[in-house]
């Protein structure tokens, strides 16, 4: 694994980059978690990031809306570089939807209030319009009947779908999914993946960190394989899964696909 060249079989159409990372580096103490990351995500593209635990894929996802800062390199969203912490960054985050592994719904607010909060406080939408939109989104992800419950009263799959609705309520330009199904019971994974499939079909730009290879195969335009803080391979899903180029990817796939 001394060879650092990235195998690129899928290059996004140039000129329509929505998210662009160039030469991004980050350390956690002595650990070099992101090493010279170059990644461009085009408008409408669905990029799935896979790789072994500790490969830096979650960190990569979190740098895109600056929940993690980077040590060096540049990240731009829609042509604008990520600003420092403050009003401008908050404005930019509103345009970048994020779905977490542990849902992170606001525990003291009802499902409906969760989806309305950002609209009212950030987008300054009036209450009635916000509620209408929240109810429509909750219907869309299939939890419309749970609107008045509190997050703790919902199953994990339902909570995650609410979290997706909460992110969608901001009309984001891009959605980041940080292992959205990793904390779910097996029978709830599909209900969340279906919502994500639908989003992908509707043309949402998505960055998805996941271990769900089925989702990667069916919904991704491009698979990015990370290991040890580097992007080792980028390819269209068919090619990546049937004919991985790098040894690291072959090794990874052999461990997860055949058992």
């Amino acid at each position, binding site marked *: 694994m001394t060879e650092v060249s990235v195998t690129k079989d899928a290059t996004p159409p140039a000129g329509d980059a929505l998210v662009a990372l160039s030469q991004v580096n980050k350390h956690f103490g002595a650990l070099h978690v992101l090493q010279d990351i170059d990644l461009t995500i085009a408008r409408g593209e669905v990029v799935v990031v896979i790789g072994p635990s500790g490969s830096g894929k979650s960190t990569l996802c979190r740098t895109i*809306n600056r*929940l993690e800062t980077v040590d060096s390199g540049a990240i731009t969203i829609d042509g604008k570089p990520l600003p420092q*912490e403050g*009003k401008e960054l*908050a*404005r*930019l*985050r*509103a*345009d*970048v*939807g*994020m779905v*977490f592994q*542990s*849902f*992170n*719904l*606001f*525990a*003291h607010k009802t499902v409906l209030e969760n989806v309305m*909060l*950002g609209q009212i*406080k*950030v987008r300054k939408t009036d209450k009635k319009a916000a509620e209408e939109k929240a109810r429509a989104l909750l219907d869309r992800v299939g939890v419309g009947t749970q609107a008045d419950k*509190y997050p*703790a*009263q919902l199953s994990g799959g339902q909570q995650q779908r609410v*979290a997706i609705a*909460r*992110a969608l309520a*901001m009309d984001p330009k891009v959605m980041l999914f940080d292992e959205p199904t990793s904390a779910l019971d097996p029978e709830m994974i599909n209900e969340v993946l279906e919502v994500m499939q639908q989003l992908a079909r509707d043309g949402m730009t998505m960055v998805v960190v996941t271990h769900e290879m089925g989702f990667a195969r069916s919904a991704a335009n491009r698979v990015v394989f990370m290991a040890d803080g580097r992007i080792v391979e980028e390819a269209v899903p068919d090619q990546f899964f049937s004919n991985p180029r790098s040894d690291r990817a072959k090794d990874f796939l052999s461990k997860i696909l055949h058992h």
Partner: protein
Amino acid sequence: MFDFLEGYDLLGAFWVTVKLTALSAVGSLIWGTLLAGMRVGPVPVMRGFGTAYVNIVRNIPLTIIIVFTSLGLNQTMNITLGATDFSAINFRLAVLGLTAYTSAFVCEALRSGINTVPLGQAEAARAIGLSFTQTLRLVILPQAFRSVVGPLTNVLIALTKNTTVASAIGVAEAAYLMKGMIENEAQLLLISAVFAFGFIVLTLPTGLILNWVGKKLAVKR
């Protein structure tokens, strides 16, 4: 048996205690919350101020703070807090001193409550574009308050009893009246018992009610 109570305005004195408690409670809740906000905030100067304030103020005896408001603020610096007569000035000074002191404890109780709110809540709030103050005000503090109703009840009960220190600067609350009665009457034990009972009447229901409120408000995770 209780003839000795005649001629004394017991209710009036306890009413002053209640007013001291209520005003100081509201004041310290506000100032304590602001201090907690400073202590968890991203601005180093404010964090430093909050930390210094709490560590200095909570380690000074309340008596010294209350006496300082009178001798230092009023008599040396001529601060009257907008009042003209002696008793109103001292009452306001006592509220100021009690608020300054109790806020330090409110701040620390609240800060421990903030630490019970999972980090993911703040991350989710920031991810939808809320600013630091919005995140604190709309997501973190509401959950933090609910988890510290118990500790804040303790602070409130302590505050109720601490109001007796205001007698040191001549505020005519319960303990002030008690001192007067002890000088003029013979039933020393009974007098103490009456005042002890008066404070229990104030604090016991407070504790019971807030305990119930705390259970009702608890955030389920």
